[in-house]
């Protein structure tokens, strides 16, 4: 059975990605029906952070632009949805799409000056955005609800499904569609331009790529993802206020992206799980070491920072990069020993089934030339 399976997998990108997405959707569907309401809520959070991380991962890992302002862009999406919910009676999906549209437009506005900026300048500019934009909502509190914020309502589920489960399904569906679209985008002309611009702007422009336009498109796509994630976050917490979008959210998203592996669309799930469960873990760590309340309030923050430093120093391609390298090493080892037939079982045990969906390029992100890409298997 395992011998013929490789042959049946579609080799063209779109059907292949679609197949992986459908398998993942079926898996998540099974998972939501088993989990409790609370765990479903957490699963939904994982899905929404995966969307935000995927946006940043594409921007940083594939296009070489950094953003410390994705928390602020999430706020734009969340406030757009909340304002629409307060003032109009639109369909939920329309409200989500409006959030994506407004945030994408915002991404273009930020992206245009960003095309003139190199790495550290862009980081600084987006840092100001992360600090400054939420203050705007405080300033115009009549519109944006000030400290209390604006309340949002979850979509009404059909039939006897619980509201949590329904929202989780929508969030997971949103995440899978986003990842599917991004995976295809990265395999297209745009994705190749993204990477060409990342690797060498001058060479890319000599090859006929419009560098500035490519960077703006990457920023807009990334911002759109952040907007969708923000809209989901606003709906799942039930209220949108400025306190939900501090600088630490932007930095947390950066940390999650770096942890999962920049440029890897599969890695975003590791990052998202870490973002959702880190506060819990750090609370229980500080309890078990009896570190006291003062420390436990800040432990999650410290861990974000340590993750950023340690991953950059020791494993710049993140968890997914490490897995991919490990898997290809094991594969090569086994191939040398016993021939080709064992590799299929290995690939299944390597981790979740979508492991190679987004890996359009040879390694994600910065770690060029660190081992072969696993998806290029022999026919």
């Amino acid at each position, binding site marked *: 059975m395992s011998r013929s399976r490789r042959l049946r997998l579609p080799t063209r990108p779109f059907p292949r990605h679609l197949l992986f997405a459908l398998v993942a959707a079926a898996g998540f569907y099974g998972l939501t029906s088993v989990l409790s309401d609370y765990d479903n809520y957490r699963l939904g959070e994982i899905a929404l952070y995966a969307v935000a991380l995927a946006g940043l991962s594409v921007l940083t890992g594939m296009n*070489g632009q950094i953003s410390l302002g994705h928390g602020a862009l999430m706020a734009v999406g969340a406030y757009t949805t909340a304002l629409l919910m307060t003032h109009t009676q639109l369909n939920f999906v329309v409200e989500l799409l409006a959030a994506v549209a407004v945030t994408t437009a915002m991404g273009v506005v930020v992206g245009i000056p960003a095309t003139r900026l190199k790495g550290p300048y862009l980081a*600084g500019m987006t840092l100001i955005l992360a*600090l400054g934009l939420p203050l705007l909502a405080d300033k115009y509190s009549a519109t944006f609800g000030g400290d209390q914020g604006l309340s949002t309502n979850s979509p009404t589920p059909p039939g006897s499904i619980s509201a949590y489960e329904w929202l989780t399904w929508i969030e997971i569906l949103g995440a899978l569609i986003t990842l599917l679209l991004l995976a295809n985008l990265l395999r297209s002309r745009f994705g190749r331009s993204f990477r060409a611009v990342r690797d060498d702007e001058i060479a890319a422009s000599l090859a006929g790529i419009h560098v500035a336009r490519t960077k703006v498109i990457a920023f807009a796509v990334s911002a759109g993802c952040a907007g969708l994630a923000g809209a989901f976050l606003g709906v799942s917490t039930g209220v949108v206020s400025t306190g939900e979008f501090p600088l630490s959210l932007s930095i947390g998203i950066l*940390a999650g992206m770096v942890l999962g592996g920049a440029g890897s669309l599969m890695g975003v799930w590791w990052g998202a799980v870490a973002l959702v469960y880190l506060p819990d873990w750090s609370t229980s760590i500080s309890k078990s070491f009896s570190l006291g309340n003062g420390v436990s309030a800040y432990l999650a923050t410290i861990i974000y920072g340590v993750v*950023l430093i340690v991953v*950059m120093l020791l494993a710049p391609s993140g968890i997914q990069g490490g897995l991919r390298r490990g898997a290809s090493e094991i594969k090569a080892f086994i191939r040398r020993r016993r021939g080709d037939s064992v590799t299929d079982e290995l690939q299944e045990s390597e981790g979740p089934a979508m492991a190679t969906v987004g890996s359009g390029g040879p390694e994600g992100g910065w770690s060029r030339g660190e081992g072969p890409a696993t998806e290029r298997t022999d026919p």
Partner: protein
Amino acid sequence: MKLFVDVTLNGVANGMIFAAMALALVFIYRATSIVNFAQGAMGMFTTFIAFSLLDRGIGYWEAFAAALGIGLVLGALVQRVLIRPLQGKPELNPVIVTIGLLVVLEGLAGSIWGNSAKGFPPAFSQTGLTVGHTKIAFSHFDLFILGAVLTLMIATLLLFRGTSLGLRMRASAFEPEVARLLGVRVGRILTLGWALAAVAGSLAGLLVAPTASFSPYYMDLSLVFGFTAAVIGGLDSPVGALVGGLITGLCVSYVGGYLGASLQPLGALALLMVTLTARPQGIFARPEARRV
């Protein structure tokens, strides 16, 4: 009119602090082409140490000097342990490491000292001076800020222009390979650059602390404004840092005085965008040829 004068004076005082922050960023950028986003947090951390020392009854100026000294060591340590291994790696990696350091230092300060409600005492009185019969928004403490930052600037210029150490620093920044061939210990010079930058950052931390609400995050905005100042000044010129600091200070102060304090960061963002669109390399930097 009174408001305008007060806002302007306030802008000058703030501008000097931003200039000190900008100078710290410029030191590091010249030496290693990295923007140190942890600069503000490092200044915050040393200022909290000074705060602890003051709490134990140590004199104000001793604590002040201790903070600057600890800043020197911290800067050198950070360069040796965290930044040096990343040399030659893509330029985003050190940026991300300094952001990680920013978060770690803020978290550590929070868990050691909590959200300290006690304010940090100023070196001199913070009530406005009286000129003629009117009280202006410029205090003895603001005069001290002016003097301290100007001293720092002059010392920097003397170091770069008048000493052989400064010459070696300039050579290492300008052409590291050639400098190394001529016998300059470039690695040590880079560490020294980070150490001196951290002293400037610590000074900024000590100067901001009495005027801000003293929490682990109190340097976030100063970092942002210092960054704006440094970029406007061109990121590689001490004079540019001073002028950029004053421009940013005035701009931020006018936005705060006339439009509201919550718009200040966006004011700085607008200033940054306008400057960079008009002159991408900043006002004081040499235009640089792009290398293919």
